[in-house]
């Protein structure tokens, strides 16, 4: 095979693969990039499709933390500086620095009833760390 033909094939295959990867990545990002919601944003933009993975964040409203399921599942309300709230349900161990009144970011999905079921909870990581999503809230509050 002559060098030019070979180069043509090489670039052809590479271009095809890159294109395929780009298409894959495009759809994967469209379906799987997790949008971030605070109660205020949720009230503004409306509920995302039930079952779609998103993140919600805000503060844990003091006095709303309760347990069901024999203690395995926790439920609490997330608030921000707006009148809206989001109810979050999570089965598992709360992060080390999870407290009522503190910031929290939950990854999970909304059910048809508007209740949010979290797959993962992140709280403040150490004394100096805030989840990046909460920084604007902190500045505003």
């Amino acid at each position, binding site marked *: 095979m002559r060098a030019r033909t070979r180069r043509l094939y090489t670039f052809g295959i590479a271009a095809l693969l890159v294109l395929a990867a780009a298409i894959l990545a495009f759809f994967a990002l469209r379906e799987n990039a997790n949008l971030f919601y605070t109660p205020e944003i949720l009230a503004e933009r409306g509920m995302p499709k039930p079952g779609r993975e998103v993140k919600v964040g805000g503060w844990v409203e003091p006095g709303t933390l309760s347990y069901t399921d024999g203690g395995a599942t926790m439920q609490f309300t997330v608030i921000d500086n707006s009148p809206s709230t989001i109810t979050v349900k999570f089965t598992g161990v709360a992060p080390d620095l999870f407290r009522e009144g503190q910031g929290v970011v939950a990854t999970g999905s909304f059910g048809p009833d508007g209740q949010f079921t979290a797959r993962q909870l992140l709280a403040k990581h150490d004394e100096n760390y805030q989840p*990046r999503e909460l920084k604007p809230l902190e500045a505003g509050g």
Partner: protein
Amino acid sequence: MIELGHFAAFLALGLSLAQGITGLRGERRLAGLIAVAAFGVMALAFLSIVHAFVTSDFSVALVVNNSHTLKPMVYKIAGAWGNHEGSMALWCIVTLGFGAAAAAFMNTDRPLFEARALGIQGLLATGALAYLLFASSPFLRIDPAPFQGAGLNPLLQDPALAIHPPMLYLGYVGYSFVFALAAAGLVEGRIDRVWAREARIWSLAAFAPLTIGIALGSYWAYYELGWGGWWFWDPVENASLMPWLIGAALLHSITVTEKRDGFAAWTALLAVLSFLFSILGAFLVRSGVLTSVHAFAVDPERGTLLLIGLLVYGGFALGLFAWRAPKLEGGKPWMLISREGALMANNIVLIVAALTVLLGTLFPLIAEAFGRTISVGEPYFNLTFVPILALILILLPIVQAWAWGKADVKGWLRWAAGGAGLVALFVLLGVGPMNIPAGAAFGLALGLWLVFGSLWELKRRAITPGRVFKLPRRVWSMTLAHVGIGLFVIGAVVETTGRYESTLALAQGDTGTVAGWALTLDEVRSIEGPNWYADGALLTARNGSRVTTLEPSKRYYPAARMPTTETAIYKTGAGDLYAALGEQRNVDGQTRWVFRVYFNPLIDLLYAGVVLIGFAALLGLWPASRKVRPAEA
């Protein structure tokens, strides 16, 4: 003591600049001597930092911020690099260490080329040292000296994490010398088999510790974060995965340059990129532009400096490349169906895979620029990275038998039939009697296909089984690395699809069941450590006649005012029974402790696979081929 270190670091800065100048002027011997001296002086500077940590010298600001007298000795030492300044000192000493090792072991019979490589390495060290001394100095005093330090972040007080940064940096920074070799080769316009033989050794010297370093970091996250998983597609993890993928591509491409004089420009480009991606990794980790569970010691301003360094190095190297690459020789002719063709496909796939990781990692930043806050998680990577890589792994056992130049394709129909049969068997078995998902069955078949395909290839090359151990070391290195990938795939697929997880809220005496194991909470007691105290749970786990105890605990470090999770892991032979202790909950007037319990099947196989890859790289590095040089033909 620390002033001595400070002075030594300045001396190292001067010496590495001298190494750069003499090297670029072509004085191989002198540049080599200076490189060794610079390393010695920097070692002294580094030891002075470690000394300050060991003696808890609280007049040094870095020690105040990161150490504590009650900390166990091993973490006092590890504390020296468990922070931004110390880790940059580590970066400097590794850069100079690779320069000194290169001065001693480089062996190409091309003094001018070697001198230039040392010179460029010297300039890279100059940059790193200037950054250390002027932007992140670990040598500063504090006045008045406090009586006690703030302590190392408790999450970092862990054996795996004590050696994880040095390993990872040996890998990241090891690529600096690969970069220097590529730049020196480009200046000469000679990226040929002599160059490739040298560069291959240094690429392996960086690849092996990088592999082990990634495995250590992942294992740390597995048992220290208490989330049961081993890879979270976290930006910091991705930052180490990208240079690894480029480094793997480089190792394959460099073989073509060494054996056939081919792919010269491409190999040089990968050699440059491997280091640029390492710096990009450092930037992503240090700058705090991305949210990460692993990111410690974050500082945006220093991040900007790293970004500038990345642009300068990148601009220089890519400019050099654009200028010189057209002059490089093309090598021996080859057909598409040949070993060259196969290695080219390998390279394209690895690079595309690295680009999908890059896109997934940077996309939140891009979106933020457009005012949306989003994050990219595991599903994205499972849909892009995983199928792209699976593509090349399917082909691997077939194409590794292909000959250089032009492959005889008669044999590979048989291979393809064998592979298809294996997959069909597994998918049928999986979906049918064993009732596992088709994707998992396919992954399992792929893993076995890789393991047996690689071993089969070893046997084929040996011709008779008795000669297997007489094969060259690099054939063994390749085989073991590919077997390692196979083991990793099996472990990863089984772990990901077969993991059980459950949350138990137990009062004293209660029993819960996870994956066939009945767990009884015997008691929760208080434990006191050197610089922490803890609530420790005592769980008795029973499965048939097997009984074991699990003791997960939750530590609290008063110095850092921070709790950590200490998981308990029982190795059952088929996987890990894994328990993490959560908080105390008051349910219906009763005190209960909440536990997260996992069963992670075959997770050890996954880590064994990765360690095998690292070991294989070390084996390939062992200088056996150096004495007997193949004839230049």
